[in-house]
């Protein structure tokens, strides 16, 4: 059952990912990307990482993609008013994406030994386990990133307040 789900979710993720780059309409691309995100969240659940899965959906599908979608809808991009890209730009994009692929492959190549070294723990993705790790081993980076996000929110509030002199 788990194996079947894994292959199904992988198929959905890869197919949706391909549709993102082949779809002609940018709004369709965004919608396929959302499907891909849901498939990846399904993978997290298969790995017992419920917290990661739900945060993935809240942050990516629930906030970032909504923002993407509204911006694209507002610009109303379509073939008629989209400026034609020059060949140099296309080449640059292809080279950059190829380099990214090389980086990912290089990173993933070394992971097999890491997985073997760690004993499997079925509580690993639970909020309790995650909280313990974050607040014991990575307290400073965690607090610093929290501060960064908080300052972003406060920055947005300050931008709204016109009469703040």
């Amino acid at each position, binding site marked *: 059952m788990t194996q079947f789900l894994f292959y199904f979710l992988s198929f959905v993720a890869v197919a949706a990912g391909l549709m993102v780059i082949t779809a002609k309409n940018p*709004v369709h691309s965004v*919608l396929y990307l*959302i499907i891909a995100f849901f498939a990846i969240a399904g993978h997290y659940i298969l790995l017992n990482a*419920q*917290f990661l899965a*739900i*945060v993935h*959906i*809240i942050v990516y*599908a*629930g*906030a970032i993609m*909504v*923002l993407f*979608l*509204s911006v694209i*809808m*507002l610009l109303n991009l379509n073939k008629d008013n989209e400026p034609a890209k020059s060949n140099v730009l296309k080449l640059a994009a292809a080279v950059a994406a190829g380099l990214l692929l090389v980086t990912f492959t290089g990173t993933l190549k070394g992971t097999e030994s890491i997985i073997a070294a760690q004993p499997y723990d079925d509580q690993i993705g*639970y*909020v309790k386990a995650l909280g313990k790790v974050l607040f014991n081993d990575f307290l400073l980076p965690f607090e610093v990133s929290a501060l960064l996000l*908080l300052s972003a*929110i406060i920055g*947005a*509030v300050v931008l*709204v*307040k016109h009469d703040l002199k």
Partner: protein
Amino acid sequence: MFTPDLIFKIVLIVSIFAITLVIAMYSTYGERKIAAFMQDRLGPNRAGIFGILQPLADGVKMFMKEELIPDISNKVLFILGPCLAMTTALMTSAIIPWGSSINIGGTDFSLQITDLNIGVLYVFAVTSIGVYGIMIGGWASNNKYSLLGALRASSQMISYEIAMGLAIIALIMSTGTLSLKEISAAQSGFHWNIFVQPLGFLIFIICSFAETNRAPFDLPECETELIGGYHTEYSSMKLGFYLFAEYINMFIASAVISTLYFGGYNFPFMNDMGLSSNAVAILGVIFLFAKIFFFIFFFMWIRWTIPRFRYDQLMRLGWTVLIPLAIFNILLTGAIIFATNN
């Protein structure tokens, strides 16, 4: 294969699904009656006694209407919009504890479909993807008014989600768990979270109004400016689905508010009356629904009392009032927890 537990779960799922739909159906009737009462009118009173069959008549009317799909719209997405709105509206009911547990023949059956250890976050996630139905429908209609409604819905949703999340963080700090089952159980008797988190409750309920697109935050369908907003082009049962999804959202939001802040299925003196645990569980379900009906009434009460916000007022309220208040609430909660622990 069919263990008693599985059969009980299936019965529970089907009955909650049916109850949700019936309550949403009669919310439309309730809304019209309450509006009529507040405006000193009679309201629907022709179909059946007191107009009690009005929702059925409305349903038949919706199905019988001619179905129009605009020629230049995107057909697949046009149909997907209302489907998504309905699906996401129904999803949250899976993790709400509708009661404690019922003992049948020596085994305990929990009156909750499933208990996730990330329960509160699940509610939050479903709320945040709920906007897609509106956005996709509004965009696929290929109509400027629909698109404006969809854009308003998305920016409103994102803005109020932040304050809602911060209010939930304060609640989680005081309860110490994300599971809705444990949050409910911890409020046993009269230890309701509203007494611990009054400010958090206020922020949460305001954000619930904004997230369900109810007045005074119903700008995505603001009929004075946008005709019908995101559902301008919709007709027949597709329009019905959008309207229905709004009432389901209202019911679920009321259930979440009751569970998080008003004790869920708990009621005062529940353990001192000398009743059997089954009787307490059944009374608990009745009390939970009483609370839910009160909040549905509250939603309608506000809608027919307070005028709609202007869009800039809506954004200003969300960003400059609710978010600072929610951050202050987190600081206050942290300080109190720190003081009581020492």
